[in-house]
């Protein structure tokens, strides 16, 4: 059930990392050349040298979302440490890759500073007191705080690419992402949207303005919770759920076949009486992918689209 094209993409990406690295530096240099072409040669050298030196070499990422972005853009040598849950496959799409780098012991300021970072990446949900401590320590801090849509992700990729001195790599990744999303949209054009609901033992469901809503919009699905007027993550109703007519339950668990998630749902009366549950109509999205806020969420789009519209995507 694994996403083949996505796997291929990743392999490709990893395989070319070394060469791309040199390209990136070269491109950066030629951009400088272009911009400063009228200035004197000496001046050019003086301007370019600090630019090269300013490329951070000890980057610490503090959250899973920023881990996923950083791994996609940085040279391996630029990464000093990743977040403490970035290597946990339950939360991180890039767990295997992240294990090759040191991990923070905790998310607090001290375990970040221990790595003597020259750039720290944090997310909007990082504790404010931690951010204050890092700022006071004089470390360059970039807080990526918008993850709601793909455009937000692209904006974050651009910011991060610029910070890392990897602008070209960021643009290439964004273009690749846009192409995948567009290809998916074309396959799904005219398909009847399937009525879906996120279901789990967690007593909240995702309505409008959530990453799940974003997922539905890209995967040929209607989020029945949003349709019923739920905003954000709201308590799952029990009786009203019966009137929402969800055709497929979107579940995520630690096991790839979703058997653990299904067993949990079977204990909850308002899920097990639903026709979709009785008929076994589930779409399984791995937990880490479901909650991914990086460009990896496109994997989830493709996975859900394939589960809901198998006739359009094999």
């Amino acid at each position, binding site marked *: 059930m694994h996403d083949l094209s996505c796997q291929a993409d990743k392999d490709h990406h990893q395989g070319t990392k070394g060469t791309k690295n040199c390209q990136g530096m070269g491109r950066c240099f030629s951009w400088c050349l272009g911009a400063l072409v009228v200035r004197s040669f000496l001046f050019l050298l003086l301007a370019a040298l600090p630019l090269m030196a300013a490329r951070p070499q000890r980057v610490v990422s503090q959250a899973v979302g920023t881990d996923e972005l950083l791994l996609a853009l940085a040279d391996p040598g630029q990464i000093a440490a990743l977040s403490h849950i970035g290597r946990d496959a339950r939360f991180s799409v890039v767990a295997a890759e992240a294990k090759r780098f040191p991990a923070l012991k905790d998310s607090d300021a001290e375990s970040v500073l221990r790595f003597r970072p020259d750039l720290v990446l944090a997310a909007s949900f990082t504790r404010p007191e931690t951010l204050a401590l890092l700022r006071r320590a004089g470390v360059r801090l970039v807080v990526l705080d918008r993850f709601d849509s793909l455009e937000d992700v692209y904006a974050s990729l651009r910011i991060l690419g610029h910070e890392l001195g990897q602008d070209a790599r960021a643009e290439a990744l964004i273009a690749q992402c846009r192409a995948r999303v567009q290809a998916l949209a074309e396959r799904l054009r005219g398909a009847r949207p399937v009525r879906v609901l996120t279901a789990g033992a967690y007593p909240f469901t995702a309505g409008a303005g959530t990453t799940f809503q974003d997922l539905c919009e890209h995967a040929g699905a209607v989020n029945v919770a949003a349709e019923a007027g739920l905003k954000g993550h709201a308590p799952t*109703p029990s009786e009203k759920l019966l009137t929402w007519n969800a055709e497929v339950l979107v579940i995520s668990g630690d096991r790839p076949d979703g058997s653990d998630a299904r067993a949990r749902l079977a204990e909850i009366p308002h899920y097990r009486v639903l026709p979709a549950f009785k008929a076994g109509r589930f779409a399984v999205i791995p937990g880490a992918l479901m909650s991914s806020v990086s460009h990896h969420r496109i994997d989830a789009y493709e996975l859900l689209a394939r589960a809901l519209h198998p006739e359009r995507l094999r």
Partner: protein
Amino acid sequence: MRARLAIPVLVALLVLAFLASLAFGELRLSFGQVVSALLGGGDDIARTVVRDFRLPRALVGMAAGAALGASGVVMQAFFRNPLASPGLLGVSSGGALGAVAVLALAPATGFAAATLWALPAASILGAFGATGAVLMLAQRGAGTERLLLSGVALNALLGAGTSFLLTTTAGHFEVNAQILFWLMGGLESRSWEHVWMGVPAILAACLLLLPLGRAMDLLSLGEQSAQSLGVDVRRLRRQLIILSTVLTALATAVGGIIGFVGLVVPHMLRIAFGPDHRRLLPYSMLGGAAFLLACDLVTRTFPLGLRLGVVTSLIGGPFFLWLLRRPR
């Protein structure tokens, strides 16, 4: 005179609360629809809502309320202290810690099958542990201060255990949410499994408790007097503490920590109908059931998703303070 009215009034209140529990919910159903759904007619949705959601929820609520009410009466008689109750003494916290331990360990042991019966069993075990600790910390006839301070210490200790488990499961946010459920009490998502798990056992414990009312009256005169009047005090005390602990644990197993019911209900009924245990026991069972259903109705109709344990505490907390300040 007043006592003669007690049973009819309490039964009427309970029936009213029970019918209201079936009639009100997220979906607007007419009374006719509810009745026909109960009898197996009507459309599928109404039938599912009434028979699989509202009916088990009301039955579990009634049983848990009766158990907590009765358990409160027994603890007050046992400790001969009006401020004793399962929540304040830490027995509920013990039951919750047991339940939480099962939930926290369940992901490792296989989730679904393990929890259904392991959970009430662990809850009873935890409650007995807490009861044992209370008995050791505050011997019989202990003063209010000693009893309550023991309860404070025990609640803190057990609460720390629960918090620890809560942090170790932080990664499993679904497990985490279930644990929070136990800590705040609630009757949503109750199903027929919970009815079978809790109601027959609670009913049995209540029936075993009822004949002990007279002996409890004699015990309230003091142990020596009770003994000289032919009560086997040791045996009675053993029966009382076992039954009240089982009742509290079962209520906790099906509804989480629901505070203050065991304190508020017996006291209100004592003020209204007098302290005679033969009467107070059945009254507290009926009154506890009606009170808990009424509180559950508040949580269902209140828009912000108020939890059951929060509602009972909002009523019980001020009541407790009033009791504490009342001249005796």
